[in-house]
């Protein structure tokens, strides 16, 4: 059945070496991926919890966060403030009141679910955060930190060439010396037919192609940063950010149903019967991602057409059946989960008390909404590993006696979603 292939001893050795290295390489690749699960990831936590109001360097809704921990009276005070700033203010804490006054009495959202460890991770992340350096500065080289990478590459390449030349020279000299001394030379094999080189490059190509292929396959169907053009230029920033409309006012299903629900046009009309023009063009001009300027008032007119509203007469237009003459409003769906995934908004929003921004990002700062999170399974799982359930506030969880006892005994501070079966297949796939 199989042909017996005789492999030269040296090749075998080389192969074995390569194999070992391949495994090592794969191992490293795996490690570099999984290391994200080990400790609380400050970046992820920052982006999902804080980024909607804070920037590390610039003042946004809230102050810039870099080195803000240094301004805290104490570390403990910092934890308290982040867990529930309003409680501190209400308790009459001097520093807290001062900050509250300073920022026009805008309350900071409470984050009771963040553990001290996680807060530390966030603070470390913002402290170490560096402004992304733009490409231009790199070319002009005016920055203090010069990039020597290319230089190293050139030096390495030059050294390699020298090594190659020296090796060749050495080889020729040896051959010449051998000829002189009458020792028979080993037949020269051209480089491209050298078995060791073929083997090494084949394995390298295989690994690289495999890595590229697997990564490509894994990302297949994912749409992070997807930002399609919508039938109406509806700015979430204008509504949820500037005008502070609660998310749940329009997406009323989020607390009741698996779908958060796109509001029906009659919900829009609750406000837009009165508001028929966009007047904030000075302060907040509407511009698409492509740079096209948008006339907000015209967009409201579009809504009237879909809703069947006559803005002149301030009345709904009726068709011959006596029904309101509405038109189908086909929004482009941005957040798409595969059909075999069951996701329930109410479980997360109502039961888990997860902020909308945790998954959808700073929607209140988006004129045009884009997909903030990758919505991949790894991303879901990661959150289930890190997030604690509302264990103490919900009587449903009384059935987990063991955990309650452990909490009482001080053995644990809380219970993660994963610990009550949050990683099991049939929690999301059925």
């Amino acid at each position, binding site marked *: 059945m199989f042909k017996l292939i005789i492999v030269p001893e040296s090749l075998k050795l080389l192969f074995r070496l390569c194999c070992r290295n391949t495994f090592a390489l794969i191992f490293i690749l795996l490690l570099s991926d999984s290391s994200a699960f080990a400790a609380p990831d400050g970046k992820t936590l920052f982006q999902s919890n804080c980024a909607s109001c804070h920037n590390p360097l610039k003042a946004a809704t809230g102050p810039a966060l870099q080195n803000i921990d240094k301004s805290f009276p104490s570390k403990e005070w910092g934890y308290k403030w982040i867990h529930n700033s309003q409680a501190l203010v209400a308790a009459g804490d001097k520093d807290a009141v001062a900050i509250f006054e300073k920022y026009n009495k805008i309350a900071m959202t409470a984050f009771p679910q963040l553990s001290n460890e996680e807060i530390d991770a966030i603070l470390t992340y913002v402290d170490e955060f560096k402004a992304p350096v733009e490409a231009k500065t790199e070319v002009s080289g005016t920055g203090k930190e010069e990039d020597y990478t290319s230089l190293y590459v050139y030096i390495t390449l030059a050294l390699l060439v020298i090594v190659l030349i020296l090796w060749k020279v050495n080889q020729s000299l040896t051959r010449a010396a051998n000829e002189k001394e009458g020792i028979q030379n080993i037949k020269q094999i051209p480089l491209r037919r050298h078995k060791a080189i073929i083997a090494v490059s084949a394995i390298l190509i295989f690994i690289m192609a495999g890595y590229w292929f697997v990564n490509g396959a894994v990302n297949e169907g994912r749409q992070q940063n997807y930002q399609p053009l919508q039938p109406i230029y509806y700015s979430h920033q204008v509504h949820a950010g500037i005008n502070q409309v609660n998310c749940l006012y329009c997406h009323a299903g989020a607390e009741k149903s698996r779908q958060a629900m*796109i509001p029906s046009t009659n919900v829009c009309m609750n406000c837009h019967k009165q508001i028929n023009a966009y007047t904030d063009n000075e302060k907040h001009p509407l511009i698409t991602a492509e740079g096209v300027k948008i006339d907000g008032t015209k967009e409201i007119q579009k809504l009237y057409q879909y809703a069947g509203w006559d803005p002149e007469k301030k009345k709904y237009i009726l068709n011959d059946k006596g029904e309101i003459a509405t038109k189908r409003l086909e929004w482009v769906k941005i957040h798409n989960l595969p059909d075999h995934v069951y996701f329930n908004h109410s479980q997360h929003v109502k039961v888990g008390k997860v902020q909308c921004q945790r998954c959808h990002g700073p929607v209140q700062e988006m004129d045009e909404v884009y997909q903030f999170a990758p919505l991949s399974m790894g991303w879901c799982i990661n959150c289930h590993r890190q997030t604690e359930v509302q264990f103490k506030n919900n009587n449903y969880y009384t059935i987990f*006696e063991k955990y309650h006892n452990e909490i009482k005994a001080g053995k644990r501070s809380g219970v993660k979603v994963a610990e009550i079966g949050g990683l099991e297949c049939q929690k999301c796939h059925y």
Partner: protein
Amino acid sequence: MSQKQYWQSLEELNYTEADKQLAENEFKEELPFDLSDNILGATTPRRDFLKFLGFSTLAATVVAGCEIPVRKAIPYAIKPEDIVPGVPNYYASTFIDGNDYCPIIIKTRDGRPIKVEGNENSHITFGGTSARVQASVLNLYDKARNRFPSQDGKEATFKDIDTNILAGLAGKVGYLVTSSIYSPTTLDLIEQFCRKNTNIKHVVYDAISYSGMLQANEACYGKKALPTYHFDKAKTIVSIGADFLGTWVSPVEFAKAYAKGRRVSAKDLRLSRHYQIESTLTTTGASADERATCRPSEVAMVVMALYHAVVNGVATALPSEKLKKLVSKAAKDLSNDGLVVCGSNDVYVQIVVNAINDKIGANRNTINWNVTCNTHKGIDKDMVELVKEVQDGKVGVLMFHGVNPVYTYFDGKKLGDALAKVPVTVSFADRMDETAQKCKFVIPDNNYLESWGDAEPKNGFFSLMQPGIAPLFKTRAFQDSLLIWAGESIKYADYWTKYWLNKFGGNQERFDLALQKGIIEPENGFTPAGYVDFKGDVLTALDKLKAMQPEKGTEIVVYQKIGIGNGGAWSNNPWLLEMPDPITRATWDNYLCVSPARGKELNAELTGFTEVNTKRPIVSVTTKNGHTEKMPVLVVPGMHNDVVAVAVGFGRDAKVGRAAASDATKGGKNAYPFIKLSETNFDYSNIVTIQKTTETYDLAITQTHNSYEHRPIVHEYSLKEFSGDTKILLKQRGVDIAEFASLPFVEKGKEGKEEKEERIIGENTEEKYRENGTLYDKYENEGLKWGMSIDLNTCTGCGACVVGCMAENNISVVGKEHVSLAHEMHWIRIDRYFSGNPEDADSIQTLFQPMLCQHCDNAPCENVCPVSATNHSSEGLNQMAYNRCIGTKYCANNCPYKVRHFNWMDFNGADCFEGNLFEDGRRDDINDDLTRMVLNPDVTVRSRGVMEKCSFCVQRLQEAKLDAKKEGTPLADGKAKTACQMACPSDAILFGNVNDKTSKIYNLRKKEQMERTFYVLEHIHTLPNINYLAKIRNTDEIAAHDEVKDIFYTDHI
């Protein structure tokens, strides 16, 4: 290891070659693999494999390069206030189909009905349902439904049709033919209509007639109605040919009540005793304690003998010894809260049955004449006379509602031909059935899920019907037509509201509450049965009975299948067509049932044509008046030797629907023409001659698709055995598992004394066995742990759970061809086991065992999955992740219960391209946009190449948990119910959290029914989360004998 001998098929009993092969083969069909050495010359050589591999990799790469489609999300323009997308709404309503009645709850998702459950408020059905009720939601989305009104086969407007009909109404005598109507408003409207059009009379015609009983009751009690039977109060039940758990009168109601008397336990050993005398094997006969067979023409003799045995203590002559024994025994028992029911349609037989019931005092207790039943009203004589008049050309107008006499009338062909003589013919049929095709006008009625309505199934017991969806097509309520033709301008919906609002004295709040509850019934249910005077003339009746001589030769019995019923729209319901018949386990067809001995004569014996082989011989069946039909033969143990049986509801016209259409390969034959008219009543048996032919026909039978290789699966005891030693099962189980409950190295007590005690299951044996019977560590289940219990004593095999599961879990219909290849997808099946001597019909005992994924805690399937697509949850569920499954089928092979099903095809068309629809009618065409509306949006639609199995309705468990979390309360017992549990009319299935010590399931297992609890194949340490309760028969003898015939041990070890 010794065990009682049960057999699924005659092949298994005789251990034939075919059966051996079945046990050995991994797959039922030939696989396209060549296992010879000549690999390159094989059907699929290695090079081909590499080509396929290369192609699929390339194809995957190309497809991966495609753009992701842009998906649209379209919100409501004006959102209805009571609909939250993604949250189901429930509406109480009523299922009505001719004589069948069931109060229901409609589950709608985003405005479309997707599931029907029983209404637990009802004192009649207590939330029970039948397979047909469960399947009715699929009829709503039937593609064969009439989509518009038509005149002479062409689409017409309601306005034109009304004008034309109104013009033709006056003049000659006319008839409105309906099935039994028990809706108070509809009856009112019919009366109004007939008052306005005085030449039109209302005639009630039921496809399956009970006029013998109605007439007998009129003669005996002065009431032309059926009484209410209280099977729960009966301690002795004698049924003579009445399949009251399957098809007779009101099976859901009876199954619920009957089950109450069957729930025996070690603490309460009371068990009703059920005698069954019948010609064929019915589900009721299968549940019976004592059973004997007779010819249909001998029923009169049996009834007479029973009367004499009850009155005089001595039974008159009877055809067989067993019957004699049974009748005299039954007669003695009957004085103890007895109840006699009889399926005969003969007036005199029923008068004598009434007399027996009167003598044994049933009218005081088990038969309630205070609350009579309105669901059956048809008198055969009326219909026979009507057909005669039509044939004579005397009729000017004929309207058909809810009936299809051209198909169901025994002389339907003649009626169909005569319809041409009637100037105005109207059908309200939902599809172009056999009668509608011959009618001038077809005005399709709404489906019941689109209708307003009401029902009064029993006097004083009302139930309301409200729509779950607006009419899908251009259809109109039958009542609206009546109103228009009676010259009224009001719509039926308004008329109905007014009528019921009036009943509540105009109190809107009370009316709304009643509508929400769905039923309006006396608060305490049934008033006790008061004694009614028996005024029947028994002596004349007995004389008539004496004159009825048993026939000679072969008799055919025309029966209803539990799924298809009398036909109607059910004939085109793929869920019901694929639901295996409880007794024959056959799908998609009707056939001639014969006894094993008769089968041998007809070449249908074991060798050659087997249950493993799908080919059956065809025989030609001819009645005395020359009606001939060719039908395949199916051997059914327990059939009387001189009786053959055939089911109605098959042999339909192509226009009834593609699934129903009868052709050369499927669909069966119409059995109604075998019915004969004896005097004025239909007789559902007839004399036939049977001739062999050389042809064969494929039947798709599911029972032998899985082999347990003779391992012990069921436990059954007689009441005597069980009451003599209630620990009998615990001891039996002790033999199997107790020795593994303690570690081998643990010190034994004094001189093995402890070991002896260990031989019986004690309180902790199960726990110890769980821990010590394996090398794995013990897994602690925190929080929830789901468990199910199935009572073999109350399971009647009706199949409601099977269809309920299909509706809930989007289970594919695979079609007849694939069923014969063992590709059926049912997550729950009801295994049927026989015991006894197949040559002696009276000795056959039948047992049903619902079999579904046992959610083993030490699951053999989980260990062998190479990709861990199936694994265990912390709640004790055996999970199946479809998108992880790569289709190796190792799990199915390693499952000892054979409950895993592989998607060999893309049965649902889940990822089909546009326009790429199945058009063969063999499946449910679920990839059609209309039919797809029935799918449950919370359950993934599986595609080709993945394994699937029962999930314990995990979507319902998750929903129940989420509801509890939102309320912030612990999950209450009974909040999470599986679909099969809710569908079951006899409450045989119980489900709950076994970690909760207050739950019903925990108490059932550990306290109430500990003595009857067993786990299937417990000794292989799979640790199932489903337990069964052993069957206890109230009989002297269990037909299954202890036998050392364990092929598992002899062949494999």
